[in-house]
């Protein structure tokens, strides 16, 4: 047995030796010769089997479309218009279902839960903790997040199925290459506009670990669905108000779009910086076939994108929002001495907040809202009311949003907000740590604490720097 094994080995070595010898004989171009041979065979077989009546009429149509959407002149404008259109449809379309869900979940279900808890003689703190804390956070996330995602993801998937996304990758390839990143990052970046967690998962399409890490770390710079409502609300209240009424909606939408584009700029910049420092390496080349344009299978696309993306992302957001709601309620209702924990924290954060043109309320809202960006505005409003003692809202720890933009504006202004505050909150909403769902996803995808921490902290640092600089310049030049 043993002898046989040795003999086997010897014979195998003979084979390998023979292979080496033959390799010398046939020379270097074996690979090319083989490849050419395969192509020649393929051509012969196709010659026999295919009758192509008008070989390239369809191809010509595809090419015509491609020549426009990937052209130097029209490529970028078309890309930005499509992005703007998708976002516009998402934002406009989500308004009604969001309001409807909020009506049901906050207006109808919550009082029912409240009276149910009362009938069971729940102590005030238990019903407060469960209903005003946990339930309310979950309800907010569903009401604010579900409609835009249920619109954005199908739209995105339709573009994907139609075949447009590879063209985006093609257009942006040069910029990504310049910044030392992979061209397919264009696809994961676009996905990030829907949800960063989904964008991080999508980076699996990038083979090279180095470039995949860059794509993961910078995905947070795509302004996700959870942050759009904040941007729009603040732009409407503060930026739209400084121009004549006829221009205000255009200007405020422009400001929001500007923030998104700024995010893209930071994505390129940070990718570039990473590839020059921590993640040095060659840019890998890849084969990106531009697929033919295909009419998407509409209903199937809607179905799969809702099942595959929307519900999974929503579920994770809910799981993370529930404890956040609990924390928000607790810090507003637990007292140390004279003040609630929230009031103390706001007090301590105020100084640093001023330095970067924000305030303690905003910083605290961002700290407790790590789980989900959707609850930032309701939390800010609640905390503002808490510290200013205004007579709106429903009490400590109860997140709310006001029906009218004007009411919201007056609450925020009572909290000491200026145009600078609004601009910096918009910037900070773009440039801060990813939400906890995304952080968790990053950890799951990278399996590395180090990269997870870096991906979480880097955007906050950038956010602090940017808001600090803006605040200082503003105070010097504007005030």
């Amino acid at each position: 047995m043993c002898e046989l094994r040795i003999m086997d080995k010897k014979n195998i070595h003979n084979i390998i030796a023979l292979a080496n010898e033959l390799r010398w004989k046939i020379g270097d171009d074996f690979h090319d010769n083989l490849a050419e041979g395969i192509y020649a065979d393929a051509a012969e077989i196709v010659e026999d089997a295919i009758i192509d009546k008008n070989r390239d009429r369809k191809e010509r149509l595809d090419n015509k479309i491609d020549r426009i959407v990937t052209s130097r002149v029209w490529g970028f404008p078309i890309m930005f218009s499509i992005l703007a259109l998708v976002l516009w449809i998402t934002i406009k379309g989500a308004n009604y279902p969001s309001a409807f869900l909020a009506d049901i979940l906050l207006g109808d279900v919550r009082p029912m839960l409240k009276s149910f808890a009362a009938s069971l003689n729940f102590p005030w703190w238990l019903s407060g903790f469960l209903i005003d804390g946990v339930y309310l956070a979950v309800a907010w996330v569903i009401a604010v997040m579900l409609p835009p995602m249920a619109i954005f993801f199908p739209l995105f998937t339709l573009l994907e199925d139609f075949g447009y996304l590879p063209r985006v990758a093609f257009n942006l390839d040069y910029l990504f290459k310049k910044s030392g990143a992979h061209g397919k990052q264009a696809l994961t970046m676009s996905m990030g506009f829907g949800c960063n967690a989904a964008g991080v998962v999508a980076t699996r399409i990038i083979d090279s670990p180095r470039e995949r890490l860059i794509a993961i770390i910078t995905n947070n710079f795509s302004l996700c669905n959870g942050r759009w409502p904040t941007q729009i609300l603040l732009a409407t209240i503060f930026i739209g108000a400084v121009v004549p009424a006829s221009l205000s909606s255009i200007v405020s939408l422009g400001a929001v779009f500007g923030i998104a584009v700024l995010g893209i700029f930071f994505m390129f910049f940070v990718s570039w910086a990473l590839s020059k420092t921590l993640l040095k390496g060659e840019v890998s080349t890849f084969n990106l076939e531009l697929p033919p344009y295909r009419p998407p299978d509409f209903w199937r696309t809607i179905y799969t994108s809702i099942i595959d993306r929307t519900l999974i992302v929503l579920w994770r957001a809910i799981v993370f929002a529930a404890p956040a709601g609990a924390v928000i309620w607790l810090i507003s209702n637990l007292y140390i001495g004279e003040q609630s924990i929230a009031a103390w924290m706001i007090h301590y954060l105020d100084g640093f907040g001023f330095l970067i043109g924000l305030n303690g309320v905003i910083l605290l809202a961002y700290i407790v809202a790590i789980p989900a960006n959707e609850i930032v505005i309701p939390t800010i409003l609640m905390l503002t009311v808490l510290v200013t003692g205004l007579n709106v809202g429903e009490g400590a720890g109860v997140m709310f949003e006001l029906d009218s933009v004007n009411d919201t504006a007056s609450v925020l202004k009572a909290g000491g907000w200026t145009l600078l505050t609004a601009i910096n909150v918009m910037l900070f909403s773009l440039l801060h740590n990813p939400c906890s769902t995304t952080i968790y996803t990053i950890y799951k995808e990278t399996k590395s604490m180090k990269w997870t921490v870096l991906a979480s902290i880097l955007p906050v640092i950038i956010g602090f720097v940017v808001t600090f600089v803006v605040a200082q310049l503003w105070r010097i030049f504007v005030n």
Partner: protein
Amino acid sequence: MDVLPHSNCENCEHFNADGLKKLGVDTTDFDYIVALAGNPNTGKSTVFNALTGLRQHTGNWPGKTVTRAEGAFQYNEKKYKLVDLPGTYSLLSTSEDEEVARNFILFGKPDVTVIVVDANRLERNLNLVLQILEITDKAVLCLNLMDEAKRNNIEINIRSLAKDLGIPVVPASARYKEGIPELIQTISDVASGKIICKPHRIKNIPKDIEEAVRILSDKIKKEFPNIPNSRWIAFRLLEGDNQIIEALESGVFV
């Protein structure tokens, strides 16, 4: 012009809705392993979903399937485990996805390899097909996107193609579930040995290389009489593929 059985006619011998059970992700206790290979963006995932009843998302961009997806279906009492390989243009290079596909077909020893090709881009797709046919002699060609080909006025002589390739060819439009029953029937026939393939061998190679491959593959055949793909191993050895050398040494092929 439709001489082929139509998917929906219930009298047709290929129509066997009762015999088919989509098993989703339950891949336990299978009788056969079926590999699903093909170029990127040819609808492999769609075929995969149609066979397993799973709903892996399909998208119109290459490189969609990033991990090896597995699923299963049952047909006439036999269980088939289906492995969706990453889409690749070739099996000759060293990129990670090509390695996954190549290694699975070579070392995973699937009972049937279904090669999904885009009927509109047959010539380009054949590059991969011909390479796979050097590795395995149990293969089925799924000529997908026939609906588009029809729209593009491309007519394909299925019989001549099947004859040239030496494997069964099944035209399909997986998106509309057309051709799937026929594909299942053919997979089962190849797996059970009812259909014996005589796969095409790459012909247009310079004389000296052909000679070298013949010498080497004869020697391999003598050593491992059961190897079906001595020619492919010879190709890889001439290329200097270390993985193959290691595999020979560790005795994977014995």
